[in-house]
């Protein structure tokens, strides 16, 4: 499911279809998180990615109308070079990683109490407090920056003009 969605995301021609395929892939990833006993990340994946990021993608796809780009080429001219590069590095990484005997469990989390979310919050707000604050600052800057960039350019006299891609 994950891989099929991913392949369709890359291969489909219509951008809206790509977004739907990406939603399928993200849902499969969320199921994997559940299998890996990461319940909090499962919920985060559903809410943030499928609820938030994909909504943003779909809004942007519909904001910039992609109708005129449906007939033209969808891949760059040297696409075979890109595929060869990616497959080569991926094969090297697979050979290196998959057969390697990774060390076994080192921690003793089996005796820890509380659910996944509770223990995650304990770790997040004690040991990783400074990165947590840094990431909140980063999100704030990203919000302000994206609003600044997506805002219509104010014309000199008459205030703001609406965006060109918006079909009212």
């Amino acid at each position, binding site marked *: 499911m994950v891989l099929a969605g991913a392949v369709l995301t890359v291969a489909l021609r219509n951008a809206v279809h790509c977004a739907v395929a990406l939603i399928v892939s993200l849902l499969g990833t969320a199921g994997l998180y559940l299998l890996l006993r990461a319940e*909090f990340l499962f919920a985060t994946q559903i809410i943030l990615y499928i609820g938030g990021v994909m909504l943003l993608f779909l809004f942007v796809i519909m904001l910039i109308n992609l109708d005129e780009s449906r007939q033209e080429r969808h891949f760059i001219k040297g696409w075979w070079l890109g595929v060869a590069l990616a497959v080569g590095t991926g094969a090297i990484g697979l050979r290196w990683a998959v057969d390697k005997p990774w060390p076994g469990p080192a921690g003793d989390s089996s005796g820890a109490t509380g659910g996944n979310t509770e223990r995650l919050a304990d770790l997040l707000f004690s040991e990783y407090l400074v990165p947590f604050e840094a990431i909140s600052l980063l999100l704030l800057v990203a919000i302000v920056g994206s609003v600044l960039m997506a805002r219509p350019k104010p014309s000199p006299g008459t205030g703001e003009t609406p965006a060109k891609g918006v079909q009212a």
Partner: protein
Amino acid sequence: MTGLSLTTIGLGHYLALSAALMLIGTVGVLTRRNVVVILMSVELILNAVNINLIAFSKHLGQLHGQVFAIFVIAVAVAEAAVGLGILIALYRNKGTVNADEVDLLKW
């Protein structure tokens, strides 16, 4: 990939899946022309990283990997927001969303 067992799902399976997902995302980034789809492929790559982090978190019996996965998700959300903002500004100024038609930095 001879070490992969067929009956039980272990760390190697997750690593293989994550590597395949990352490969597909890389192919998408390198070959597509539409910037929206390129951003989606970047999301695929970040998801592959998250699967890796959480698989190792389960494997090692620690939660640090999941904390890092939360950070990766936050960075991915910020990246998507900024990228799409740039994309809207680009479309307004250039009228295109194809990556190879944007040559503002070419001299």
